[in-house]
């Protein structure tokens, strides 16, 4: 049974009922310590049910082994070992037949494959999910790439399971509103509840290095993708929105454009070197440093006060040569419904900023 499905939540909810009924029935016949046990069991059942439902909503621990602290993802099945003849540090897991993978529908559009990226530069080793468009299998072209960051708490599985990104990408590409594009869904922390905001934490995970050097190196090694800046973009929601804005401003030589969905202008964490107030603060960067010629898409819900204020601040500060596009949904707060509404427009916009699939 999947940890992040409705199964475990319903199972735990059954225990909530069971413990309540048990307490009601056995109370009069129980001694003090037994009553305490009944009450504790009932409380525990409620806590576990709530925790499972929260996990289902955020995809913080997408799998049982992620909960157990294993950073590798067991969803991909047995490890086939290093790909023969590659001689690289990366392990690739060729796409399973469509029917075997929960995300893929046979015969329709692109597919999700998995890749474990052993980061040489960052020291982080994590799985990543990779969307390969339908055209990937047929052609010989090198495709543009979008790196998609997730929220906190969360995991790349939220893009796949909560935000139905496969469906949106297939639809936009099939309609010709988006060029066939490879989309990468990496983890941005090795520890589920450690919020890196995609930065290099002093004495902690080097998430920025992992996302901007190790992930691109692995994707360029394993897939037919563009290797130039013009072919690389970023997208993220919530904390991932901050990530995409911040990484774009910090690495304009690696990325041409970024889309921030309900993102923020500040990291909101302590990085350890004070850079949350300076170099890792997009508002500070836009005020103090030369602005790079990049495209920036800032989307927010009108009733999401924090993300709205921060997006408007960024839009005001990001003057030429930065080209800003803003997009608003009327309401919906800071929720999956909002990000689903933003997905197609944001991916369409990003694709119009990225260099096309090119002959290899």
């Amino acid at each position, binding site marked *: 049974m999947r940890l992040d499905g409705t199964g475990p939540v319903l199972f735990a909810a059954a225990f909530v009922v069971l413990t309540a009924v048990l307490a009601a029935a056995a109370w009069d016949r129980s001694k003090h310590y037994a009553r305490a046990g009944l009450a504790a069991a009932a409380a525990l059942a409620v806590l576990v049910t709530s925790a499972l439902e929260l996990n289902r909503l955020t995809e913080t621990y997408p799998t049982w082994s992620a909960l157990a602290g294993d950073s590798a993802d067991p969803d991909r099945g047995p490890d086939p070992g290093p790909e023969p003849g590659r001689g690289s540090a990366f392990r690739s897991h060729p796409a399973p037949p469509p029917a075997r993978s929960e995300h893929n529908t046979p015969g329709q559009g692109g597919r999700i494959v998995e890749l474990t990226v052993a980061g040489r530069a960052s020291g982080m080793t994590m799985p990543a999910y990779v969307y390969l468009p339908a055209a990937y299998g047929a052609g010989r072209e090198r495709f543009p790439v979008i790196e998609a960051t997730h929220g906190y708490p969360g995991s790349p599985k939220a893009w796949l399971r909560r935000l139905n990104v496969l469906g949106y990408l297939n639809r936009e590409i099939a309609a010709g509103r988006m060029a066939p594009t490879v989309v990468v869904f990496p983890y941005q922390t090795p520890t589920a509840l450690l919020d890196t905001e995609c930065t290099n934490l002093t004495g902690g995970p080097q998430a920025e290095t992992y996302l901007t050097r190790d992930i691109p190196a692995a994707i360029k090694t394993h897939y037919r993708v563009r290797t130039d800046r013009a072919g690389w973009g970023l997208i993220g929601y919530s904390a991932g929105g901050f990530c995409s804005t911040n990484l774009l401003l910090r690495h304009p030589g690696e990325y041409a454009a970024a889309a921030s969905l309900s993102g923020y202008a500040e990291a909101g964490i302590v990085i350890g070197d004070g850079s949350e107030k300076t170099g890792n603060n997009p508002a500070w960067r836009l005020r103090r440093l030369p602005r790079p010629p990049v495209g920036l898409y800032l989307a927010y819900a009108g009733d999401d006060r924090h993300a709205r204020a921060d997006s408007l601040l960024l839009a005001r500060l990001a003057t030429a040569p930065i080209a800003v*596009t803003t997009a608003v949904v009327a309401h919906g707060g800071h929720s999956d419904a909002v990000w689903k509404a933003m997905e197609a427009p944001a991916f369409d916009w990003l694709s119009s900023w990225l260099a096309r699939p090119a002959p290899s």
Partner: protein
Amino acid sequence: MALTGVALIALTLLATAAAIAATTLVWGRFGRWRPVSRSAGVLLCEALIVLSAGLIANRHEQFYPSWQALAGTGTTTTTAVQPPARLDSEFGPGTTTVLWRPPGSAAWRLASNAQVTVPRGYLGSHGSFPALVALGGKPAGGDLVRVTARPTSKTTAATLANLPALLGADLRVTGHGWALVSSSAFAPLAVRMVEADPGRFAALALVGGPPRGFRCPPGVAVAVARTASARGALPRGVTPLTGTWAAAAGWAVTRSPLPLAAPQVLPAGAA
């Protein structure tokens, strides 16, 4: 009553306390229905405790700031169909190239009238196209809208400054991701055009050159097409190409975005 308001949280906490008190009071009553009344009481208390915690967390984090937010976004995406541009009607199945003489074009100081060529697919499309501007030559523009112009010694980046905006008024073109291809004779002009309009051009391809002291403008891919026998190192970051106009334009087109169908869009935010 607001979803994130103190009133609703207070009310829920009050209801929780009342449910706990009531469950305690009836704990010994209802005879043989006791297991049912007790279970129902316990479950009600638990549900209210979880609800209170959820409301407090939601007030703190503002996930759903209002009742309305629970109902979704209240917004649908629309397809941004581009209305026909001024010159669209001048093109037809047999006419893909026309002379381009927008008002004010005399100030460009060109040797002859500029021409615009639309790609196959332009007329059937409701989307926008990146543009390829060619100075001093007429390379194939691939699937981009192509502008060809023959500058003179009096043509400068300043006299051409309004060209992109005028093109935007006359044809369905994007505002970014353009390509500029130029003969070496107009390379200094081409470089100044790119530098004067940052963010507009994604690629600059020079046929011969580059000019002395050339440095790649930030965010722009640069290539120089030369004959196979050409010698001399190219500046840092410049892609060497073998050939002339076709090689330069072909390379520039692959650096531009694909012309796409009219995109899905959301309303823009307050300026």
